[in-house]
């Protein structure tokens, strides 16, 4: 009797302790919750609301217009080219960053003495502000006095000295190179971190068994990188989708809209054409696209995890 009484007391005490702990936990994360609500939930709700509205400046009066904004995007002859440019931009920059990042990671992972200083220097473009990188490249590819064209001219390659940013046919390519220059080191660091966690003895064993470097890369290194490559891919696709700084500073979306990709388009629709409803509708679509990318990634990720679980 006494014993049960005591356990009951202990239980009620532990329940109140638990409640107290829980209260404390909520108190601790409360500021974060407020910020999440403010920074994510509220903007999403607002954006969806605006996407069905016509927003009039300067008083920002909103009138409900149903699917008008979306229909207008659908019927806009500019939408097709915009989607195509965005895809070219994402594919180009992601491919370039991933290739450079992977090769650089493999090079700097090789146990060769005296390469640490190289690695540090290679990271620099990622470390400097995007504004600085964009201005740097704008100066380098400048038509008349830029070092690229001046060098080409001094080598007698006058015809190669193009108007890199002023010509719609080369502008996209030029900005992709500048953007990848500033970003590939991040992919490299991600892969490098994974490579350095891999056990070296497996490669050694394979080498003793007569495997060449390609076989080791193809059948040992690459499979163990699949996780980190998927992460890098997903992060780069999303950042490519909404990238803004480099494009805005180097070309402002021009010339003749040749580099006007999705992110630039939302900004310009909203803040130079003052069509906030239209910009909100575009934002909703981009938000949906990001969700799709993350879900696809989640699906692939869990399948990889399951497969690795089976193997183990």
């Amino acid at each position: 009797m006494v014993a049960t009484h005591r356990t009951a007391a202990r239980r009620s005490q532990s329940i109140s302790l638990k409640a107290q702990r829980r209260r404390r936990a909520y108190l601790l994360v409360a500021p974060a919750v407020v910020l999440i609500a403010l920074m994510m939930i509220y903007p999403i709700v607002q954006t969806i609301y605006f996407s069905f509205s016509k927003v009039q400046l300067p008083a920002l009066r909103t009138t409900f217009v149903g699917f008008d904004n979306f229909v207008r995007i659908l019927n806009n002859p500019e939408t097709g080219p915009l989607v195509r440019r965005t895809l070219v931009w994402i594919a180009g920059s992601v491919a370039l960053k991933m290739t450079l990042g992977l090769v650089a990671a493999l090079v700097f992972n090789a146990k060769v003495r005296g390469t640490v200083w190289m690695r540090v220097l290679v990271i620099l473009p990622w470390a400097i502000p995007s504004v600085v990188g964009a201005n740097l490249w704008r100066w380098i590819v400048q038509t008349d006095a830029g070092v690229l064209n001046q060098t080409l001219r001094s080598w007698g390659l006058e015809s190669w000295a193009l108007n890199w940013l002023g010509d719609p046919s080369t502008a996209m390519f030029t900005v992709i190179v500048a953007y990848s220059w500033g970003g590939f080191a991040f992919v490299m660091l991600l892969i490098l971190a994974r490579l350095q966690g891999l056990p070296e003895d497996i490669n050694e064993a394979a080498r003793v068994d007569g495997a060449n470097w390609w076989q080791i890369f193809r059948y040992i290194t690459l499979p163990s990188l699949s996780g980190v490559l998927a992460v890098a891919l997903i992060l780069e696709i999303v950042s490519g989708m909404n990238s803004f700084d480099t494009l805005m500073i180097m070309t402002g979306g021009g010339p003749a809209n040749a580099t006007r990709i999705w992110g630039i388009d939302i900004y310009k629709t909203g803040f130079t054409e003052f069509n906030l409803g239209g910009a909100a509708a575009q934002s909703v679509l981009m938000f949906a696209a990001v969700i799709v990318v993350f879900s696809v990634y989640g699906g692939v990720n869990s399948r990889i995890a399951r497969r690795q679980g089976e193997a183990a």
Partner: protein
Amino acid sequence: MSAITSIGRPKTAHDYAIRQMVGTIGKYVLVYGLGLAFVLFSTLPLIWGISTALKVPSEVYAFPPSWIPTTLTFENFFLVVQNKNLLRAFLNTLIIASGTTFIALVVGVLGGYGFARYHFPGRNMLLWSVLFTKLFPRVVVIVPFFITLRNLQMMNSYQGLILVYLMVTFPVAIWLLKGFFDKIPVEIEEAAVIDGCNLPQLLWYVILPMSRPAMIAVAMYSFILAWNEFLFALVFTNGLERRPLSIALAFFIDENGIRWGELMAASVVMSLPAIIVFSFAQKLLVRGLSDGAVKG
């Protein structure tokens, strides 16, 4: 001959050693060659920028281009330091970045500790929301933020900019600090609690002193994120008054066009904090950026 040996009978130690040596030399050539190519690709643009910043105006446009300035000058840097607009932008950036870093640290310590030590309903969902806020495309929120800031009369103000910059800095602060708190053994805290420490005392006297390195790294990282921010600064400021450095550099142009020497000098100045911080906290940053995405 060597082909026959390699098929006919087991390799001798001598053959193996030679092959290994050739392999090692080949590896060195390949790694150094490719490594240097990457170094050139990464640093040549930077070197060109620095070189431009150190040139007199006439040499900036010289043909053929000279990589090493014939007359070294710091005039461009003096012009930058004397430029009132740039100084104001510099000060603006300093205020905004410090404010947002401070708030992010407070939110990050509390939230990071809460997530690391307590299990409560909704914990995982909240953690994922924090991560998602970080990965969330910033372009998507400029319209609602713009309208909100207008309604709150916080356009073109420090408070407004600090508020929106938090979206960039607080998720990183929470994730990095949570990762750090996870590794602190609970026993230390239990001892403090037995000694009669309450929660605020525990945080202030036990946790904070222990996590000083992590706090410094998080502060530096968040400061740099705010320092470099461009999109929010562009949308939520107008005019010179509250304009941060990133905007000032992006629109560094006057009636005479762009003065590249001066712009490059200003760019060097703007890059210094970032480069210093990244060279200190490189490892931690990569972990912070990849951790949340790899797990789960």
